[in-house]
């Protein structure tokens, strides 16, 4: 780097540091307290050098990052960082024994998790698994369909409250009819899925004609309305206090004590997640999945190639909502208590962040994103209050510098081999 270039860079960064120091001065250095209608201000001078130095350094970093980002060319398929790492794992693909062994080890770890780590950690993992389901569901809508849904938590709420209502209104009859309440979970599960799907379809009807930004806002409005109704219709929904004492699923006729119940729910969650991943992978590589992605890429071209846009959008929302509904039932069973606070806009944004940070449209990305978002705050307690701040920054950094996320979507490759003299394709996947 030439001397001049460096000098002007340093000047530039100094200027930016000065800018930020002044800009952030009132809110960071000065702290206001109000007592008896009089505002008093205290000065936290120790923060001043921190802002100055941090912004100086970060301005260099940011500038470099922008340069790197703008001159970056799309690398050929094999050379990106993540595929190099994947390359290290080639050994797994080729050697069947090693692959089997790894899978077996993984399954073992998953299976003994609750016993190895105890109830506290198991509960955390259950929450994380619920979020994995949510992220996979939202991934269908946002990642594949390109439809930004900011009210996804509403479907989550529908699922949870379906179970809650079932317990609240049908529960008593159930008990008096001699059935154990443990059955309710298993009834609620498919019911919630269906009802959430219905809500998904209902939501999609008004938004069929709307473009991206309007769509985002109307889904946000929908989410908020659902939460407000849950909050205010106290007679039915229990209002802010919600519904409690929701029964846990029973195990072969036995009511389990909390510790075993948590383990049981953990396994249920694991199985549901496995099922979700399985189904979503199948959808990804199918006519339905391709149609959704085509819609995201270009709605007009997609229509002109014979795809019914209305039907596609309905399917997208319905599919997405279904998983949220199921996840809601698991949540209700885990916590045995639901109230509107679990289904705020921030929930929707969190799930969106998991999808965006993990990798829009990518199944492993959604899983990793959800895991990170739910597990990190639990295991990095000291930073917990900065959680939202960190996530917000992460989301912006990712969307500017690595928009396809931590684990980008990998498109399937096909290889065609001539069969004898007749030319017929024979596909081999990569």
């Amino acid at each position, binding site marked *: 780097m030439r001397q001049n270039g460096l000098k002007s860079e340093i000047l530039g960064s100094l200027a930016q540091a000065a800018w930020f120091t002044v800009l952030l001065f009132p809110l960071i250095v000065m702290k206001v307290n109000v007592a008896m209608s009089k505002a008093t201000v205290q000065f936290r001078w120790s923060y001043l050098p921190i802002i100055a130095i941090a912004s100086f350094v970060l301005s260099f970093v940011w500038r470099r990052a922008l340069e790197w980002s703008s001159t970056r060319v*799309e690398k050929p*398929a094999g050379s990106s960082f993540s595929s190099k790492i994947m390359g290290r794992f080639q050994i797994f693909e080729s050697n069947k024994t090693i692959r089997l062994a790894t899978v077996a080890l993984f399954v073992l770890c998953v299976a003994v998790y609750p016993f190895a780590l105890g109830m506290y950690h198991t509960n955390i993992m259950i929450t994380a698994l619920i979020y994995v389901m949510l992220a996979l569901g939202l991934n269908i809508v946002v990642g594949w369909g390109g439809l930004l849904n900011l009210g996804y938590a509403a479907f989550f709420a529908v699922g949870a409250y379906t179970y809650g209502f079932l317990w609240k209104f049908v529960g008593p009859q159930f008990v008096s009819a001699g059935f154990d309440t443990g059955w309710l979970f298993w009834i609620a599960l498919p019911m919630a899925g269906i009802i959430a799907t219905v809500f998904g379809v209902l939501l999609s009807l008004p938004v069929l004609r709307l473009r991206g930004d309007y769509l985002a806002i109307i889904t946000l409005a929908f989410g908020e309305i659902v939460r407000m109704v849950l909050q205010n219709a106290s007679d039915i929904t229990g209002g802010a206090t919600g519904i409690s004492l929701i029964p846990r699923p029973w195990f072969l006729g036995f009511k389990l004590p909390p510790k075993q119940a948590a383990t049981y729910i953990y396994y249920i969650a694991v199985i549901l997640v496995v099922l979700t991943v399985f*189904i979503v992978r*199948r*959808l990804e590589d*199918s*006519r*339905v*999945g*391709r*149609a959704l*992605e*085509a819609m995201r*890429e*270009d709605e*007009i*071209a*997609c*229509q*002109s*190639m*014979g*795809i*019914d*846009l209305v039907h596609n959008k309905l*399917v997208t929302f319905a*599919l997405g909502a279904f998983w949220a509904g199921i996840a809601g039932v698991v949540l209700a069973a885990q916590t045995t208590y639901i109230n509107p606070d679990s289904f705020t806009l921030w929930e929707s944004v969190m799930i969106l962040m998991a999808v965006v940070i993990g990798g829009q449209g990518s199944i492993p990305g959604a899983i990793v994103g959800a895991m990170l978002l739910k597990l990190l705050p639990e295991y990095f307690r000291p930073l917990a209050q900065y959680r939202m701040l960190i996530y917000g920054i992460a989301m912006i950094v990712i969307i500017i510098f690595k928009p396809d996320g931590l684990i980008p979507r990998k*498109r*399937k*490759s*096909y290889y*065609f081999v001539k069969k004898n003299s007749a*030319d*017929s*394709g024979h*596909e081999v996947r990569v």
Partner: protein
Amino acid sequence: MTSEMKPILEIEDLSMVFGGLRAIDCVSMHINSGEIAALIGPNGAGKTTIFNCITGVYKPTEGTVSIVDSDGGKEKIQGLKPHLINNKGLARTFQNIRLFSNMSVLENVMIGRHNSLKGGILSAIVRDRRTREEEQRILDESYEILKKIRLDQFVNETARNLPYGAQRRLEIARALATDPFLLLLDEPVAGMNPHETKELEETINLIREQEKVTILLIEHDMSLVMNVSERIYVLDYGRLIAEGTPLEIKSNREVIKAYLGE
């Protein structure tokens, strides 16, 4: 190959009004089975607007667009949704390329085959034998189309990484995959160099011969138009000012006036 003079598409008194602007004014055209016809005219004449009216992107203010079947029966299609019109056998490419940029070349074509499949969500999940066979069939058919258009070496390439000429051809391949009887090409050689243009010219002839598809194209490149089309319609300020064979059009006074001024 000579085309039989049997119309398969009839456009009658088509008009399209946007606000105060009459983009197309009482245009009547017909396309005959098996021919290659061209729609030309100065910029802004309304050519793409006509395409949009035919393919359902716009609902025309007045007039009709009809598919004519072998007995002469007419089926009105104006105002229908684009996907329905595509189902009936009309496919198109776009003036500004509209590929599914982040999907692979093969996947772009596979989407064209979307409607040859029946399966929905359930069959996607269950993936029974019939679904698997259908998937295999789409793969084979799409690959065949790519081979015909000579894009098979790009099979797994992301669409937006393709060279420009290849992208245009991919759009055509995708449109072909929808199994149309009429293919509408909107400026297929725009931005191409002479070599690519020649290639595309061959492709167009090949499509007509092998796929038995009728072609209507919008173009500015006069050499392509003259070489490839059998009949030409000329549009100016939304009105049809001439119709005829390339030779006739070349010497038509109105046409020359529209392009070059008096």
